[in-house]
């Protein structure tokens, strides 16, 4: 054991190792510098980002008083909440079916289930817009929710299936052996055990829904502006400190979401799920 430790020690100080470390630090700097700049400028007293004019919270105050922004947040929460709810239920159901049953046409259905994940969002946006126009559906929150569910089902299904792949089917058999019928087995054994996966999928759906700009943009109508649409129009008008403040706040929220997802995974004892 001693010799291995010594060898590791020497390997660490080799030039490859050092290069790797430098690269790692540079990588994280690349990821964080823009964000740090953004946050710093959100506290800048100057309206113009070119110089530091002292610390202020004015931009946060004016952002919080923005009525249009408030309604955008409300719309975003409505869209994300309902699309997450629907897609989590449907996605979990389909994941259960796909992980345990073989049936005719399964391969085709599997492909259909994966397609929304790999198709570029601009293409999906175009498809849905044309469909809604031809179906004469009034563009608005409902069409946005329909569209978000259409891509979120697939993401939820993938995350829940990853969890189910590690699920020991003999646990369900054990429950049925011990006089639990199908419902009791599902509620007492299956659901509690795959709950971390379902919550992970729901969290992912929620994040994707909050984040989505392109598909939302195409399928939205008057009065259904969501937060990303609002940010986009603000950015298009020009860089302002209010956007910096808003961005910093959203950064804080996404950090909280990451922490939450990590806690969920820890609670379930599963590994990190990557999509």
């Amino acid at each position: 054991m001693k010799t291995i430790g010594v060898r590791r020690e020497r390997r660490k100080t080799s030039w490859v190792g050092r290069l790797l470390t430098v690269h790692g630090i540079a990588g994280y700097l690349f990821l964080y510098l823009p964000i740090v700049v953004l946050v710093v400028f959100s506290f800048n007293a100057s309206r113009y980002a070119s110089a530091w004019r002292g610390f202020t919270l004015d931009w946060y105050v004016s952002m919080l008083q923005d009525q249009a922004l408030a309604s955008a947040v409300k719309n975003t929460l409505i869209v994300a909440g309902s699309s997450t709810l629907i897609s989590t239920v449907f996605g979990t159901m389909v994941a259960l079916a796909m992980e345990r049953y073989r049936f005719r046409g399964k391969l085709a259905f599997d492909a259909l289930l994966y397609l929304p994940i790999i198709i570029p969002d601009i293409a999906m946006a175009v498809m849905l817009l044309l469909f809604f126009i031809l179906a004469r559906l009034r563009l608005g929150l409902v069409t946005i929710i329909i569209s978000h569910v259409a891509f979120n089902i697939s993401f939820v299904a993938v995350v829940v299936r990853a969890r189910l792949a590690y699920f020991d089917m003999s646990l369900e058999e054990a429950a049925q052996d011990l006089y639990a019928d199908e419902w009791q087995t599902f509620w007492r054994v299956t659901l509690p055990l795959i709950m971390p996966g379902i919550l992970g999928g729901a969290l992912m759906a929620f994040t994707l829904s909050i984040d989505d700009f392109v598909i939302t943009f195409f399928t939205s109508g008057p009065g259904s502006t969501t937060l990303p649409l609002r940010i986009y129009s603000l950015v298009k008008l020009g860089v302002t400190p209010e956007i910096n403040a808003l961005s910093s706040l959203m950064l804080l929220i996404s950090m909280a979401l990451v922490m939450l997802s990590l806690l969920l995974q820890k609670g379930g004892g599963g590994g990190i799920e990557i999509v």
Partner: protein
Amino acid sequence: MEIQPRSRRETRRLIFLIAPSLFWLLVFFLFPLVLVLAISFGQRGTYGGVEWSLSLQNYRRFFDPLYLRIFGRTLLIALTTTVICLVTGYPLAYFIATRPPRWRNGLLLLLMIPFWTNFLIRTYAWLLLLRDQGLINMLWTGGLHNALLWLSNTVPLPVWGRLLEATSTSLSLFGTNGAIIVGLVYGWLPDMVLPCYAAIERLDHSLVEAAQDLYANRVQSFLRVILPLTMSGVVAGSVLVFIPSLGAYVTPDLLGGAKSVMMGNVIYSQFMSARDYPFGAAISFVLMTVMLVGTLIYFRLGTES
């Protein structure tokens, strides 16, 4: 374990589990997809509607040099982005995977935070840095220029003149292909690192030791053992970066300005300003096909090696 439904009751349950998703995906995904294909053969109506027909005119129009150039640029940008993400992301993943376990989770967490941040905001952050009055130019024409001025006054050397001249005007970073690539790499780097990390972390270290025991030096054991065994991560990561880069709209729109546009922007303008739905549909379909075929080939290559 997958099984065939064993009784009528199980068949009913299977249908119950699948039906909602199947309905949703058929009506709100597959049908619209077929619709786009159908419309792409149609023509633009006089008032912006769709006139159904079976013409290849839209696809022919795609081969107009104007669009071919944009398409070429889109492919180039997407490929460059993927390659940059791969050559920077893989070592980063390797770096994380070789840290002690207690460090690893923290590093992964740090990687996930930007990943979970709104994409618009992440792109916007680069707008702050890259635009003409942005931070980089502020440092270039302000900080660096002043420093050079001071230097040229204290240590007179012929070089300063050229450098002073260069730093007196701002760099045009904004609106270039480079700006788009930086934005895309920034946006999708975690998508490359995470699958690579997962593959590297799964790698059985004794295999590397076995290779070294069998006289492979560090480069050989990387090329012959580590890389092939982590290929699944490389393939997955590349696809995850390539697809959204190919269909990018937000990044070129915010960082590319008027000069540098990609296919996503062309599709957007066909729907939002030109109102030529059939042509927009045709471009979307070409884009989807390129992406699907590319992905399939890549996966095939990845699984073969």
